[in-house]
């Protein structure tokens, strides 16, 4: 029951054009910045948006084909969605919400309610909340109900749209665990759309990065995060990513500057630098680091036992130092600072 989709949709300013494959063996996370087209992709897979170009095939069934004009309505697809805003029916109790899909498929009221109750138990909603209206549930509880409602229909394709974004920080951790457990045992293709890296890492096995309507990278999580091919992913995982042309022992960056690297790469290439590998100085450094340049401290963020410094220079770079070092350097926003990176600390790979 594999999903094979080529999705081409034009919606306002968005031009979505990508190909995607997902098998029931792994949970796929679709990540990317806001406005990239992730939700539109989800809506196209669910049948809520018509394809301008492309084809969606689930198992051996064609759900949509722009060339023939075929379009199976959402109610005809076995695709369930867990929406970002839960979209629980406000006039129905939690139980009746979960039973809704079962009744729509022909189950009797008592039977649907019984099965609905089972599902609510599986997502961990206490029994005394089963008859509450959505308005009386907390964000986390409502999201559980939304999950149960989708799972109850036993879909062939389960889509989750930012499932944890509307949940407060305290409940998020717990809910994430519940989600992970349920996703692990749910048969069928499972696709999670999220902009939260922790969600992606926790819930998914494979990552698909969508930016500006296109897939910029995909692959197993470990691979994508250690070898990011887009600034967004790099920022996601908190790394510095540079893109340029390898020439001998240097990576020439757009704008003219170059990084001296330890690995020889020719042609288009990426360079990854961990913020901790960046050293800051108040005066031009005399160290053996082959890469050094001047810049301005554009941003200073203290995060627990670390200080992240955004340095505006050619090229711009993010450094991570101890708060003590930051104080010692008398770093102030806008202040002049020197940056150095050892060639050996730069991870270069072709791109």
């Amino acid at each position, binding site marked *: 029951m594999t999903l094979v989709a080529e999705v081409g949709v034009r919606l306002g300013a968005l031009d979505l054009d990508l190909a995607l494959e997902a098998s029931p063996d792994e949970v796929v996370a679709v990540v990317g910045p806001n406005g990239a087209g992730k939700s539109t992709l989800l809506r196209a897979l669910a049948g809520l948006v018509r394809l301008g170009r492309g084809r969606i095939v689930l198992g051996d069934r064609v759900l949509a084909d722009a060339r023939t004009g075929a379009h199976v309505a959402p109610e005809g*697809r076995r695709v369930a*969605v867990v929406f970002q*805003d839960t979209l629980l029916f*406000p006039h129905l109790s939690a139980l009746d919400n979960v039973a*809704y899909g079962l009744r*729509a498929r022909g189950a009797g009221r008592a039977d649907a309610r019984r099965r609905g109750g089972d599902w609510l138990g599986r997502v961990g909603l206490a029994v005394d909340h089963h008859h509450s209206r959505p308005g009386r549930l907390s964000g986390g509880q409502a999201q559980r109900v939304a999950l149960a*409602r*989708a799972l109850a229909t036993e879909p062939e394709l389960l889509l989750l749209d930012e499932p944890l974004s509307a949940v407060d920080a305290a409940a998020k951790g717990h809910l994430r665990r519940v989600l992970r457990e349920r996703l692990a045992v749910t048969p069928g293709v499972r696709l999670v759309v999220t902009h939260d890296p922790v969600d992606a890492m926790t819930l998914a096995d494979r990552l698909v990065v969508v930016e500006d309507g296109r897939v910029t990278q995909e692959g197993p999580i470990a691979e994508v995060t250690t070898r990011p091919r887009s600034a967004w992913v790099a920022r996601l995982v908190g790394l510095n990513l540079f893109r340029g042309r390898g020439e001998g022992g240097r990576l020439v960056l757009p704008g003219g500057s170059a990084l001296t690297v330890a690995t020889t790469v020719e042609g288009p290439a990426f360079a990854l630098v961990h913020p901790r590998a960046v050293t800051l100085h108040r005066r031009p450094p005399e160290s053996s680091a082959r890469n050094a340049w001047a810049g301005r401290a554009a941003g200073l963020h203290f995060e627990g036992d670390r200080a992240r410094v955004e340095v505006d220079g050619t090229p711009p770079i993010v450094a991570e130092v101890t708060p003590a070092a930051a104080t010692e350097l008398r770093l102030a926003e806008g202040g002049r600072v020197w940056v150095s990176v050892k060639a050996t600390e730069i991870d270069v790979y072709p791109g």
Partner: protein
Amino acid sequence: MKRTALLAGAGMALMVLPLAGLLQRAPWSTLGTELASREARDALGLSLVSSLGALAVSVVLGVPLAWILARVPFPGRALVRALVMLPMVLPPVVGGVALLSAFGRRGLLGSWLGSLPGFPLPFTLRGVVLAQAFVAMPFLVVATEAGLRQLDRRHEEAAATLGARPWRRFRTVTVPLIAPSLAAGAALCWARALGEFGATITFAGNLPGRTRTLPTAIYAGLQTRPEGAVALSLVLLAVCLAVLVALRGRWLGTT
């Protein structure tokens, strides 16, 4: 501020004094016997039956109409909406004349359908229902359309993804969610149908026991037996007041 209060006071007086006058003229002591008389009971019964019939017609035809106006863009939609709202501003007698020219014995449609069962319409209870529906249906359509427009359609989308087909979605999600607007529209529609006079008497005529509704009985009775007419007026007044209080300011779909 004082000027505003003065003008507001005058406005209120304009609205309240006629009602106060009516209450003052009411035959409180004989109210019971007046309302129990044959004519009163006939008129009341007829009005109730016809107005509920008009409400039913308005719901069956008006809700789909509101749906189309709210959801289906088509050329000339704004014009259709204006036409649907026309009876709200048309003088009711004009409405009656228009109905005659369409459904009267020599009317556009009436002349053709004359021999079919159920036709002709003038002088019958069916005719009363039609006249009342004509003037009252727009209230229902306007309120329902407003409710549909304000609805968050994503709930209907969610229902679709759960496997619900269009009619089930409409029944189980759309209608419950627009129920307040629908109810407000229905209440106003019913009250308007109950109070309808000009179109009813012009189209369906006036025959006690068959087509003499409450307002017609009031008008006819005013000359010869004002006490009876005022008593009946009180009934109509009480019903309309009850409807408006029940709506509690919820007017034509706005929350």
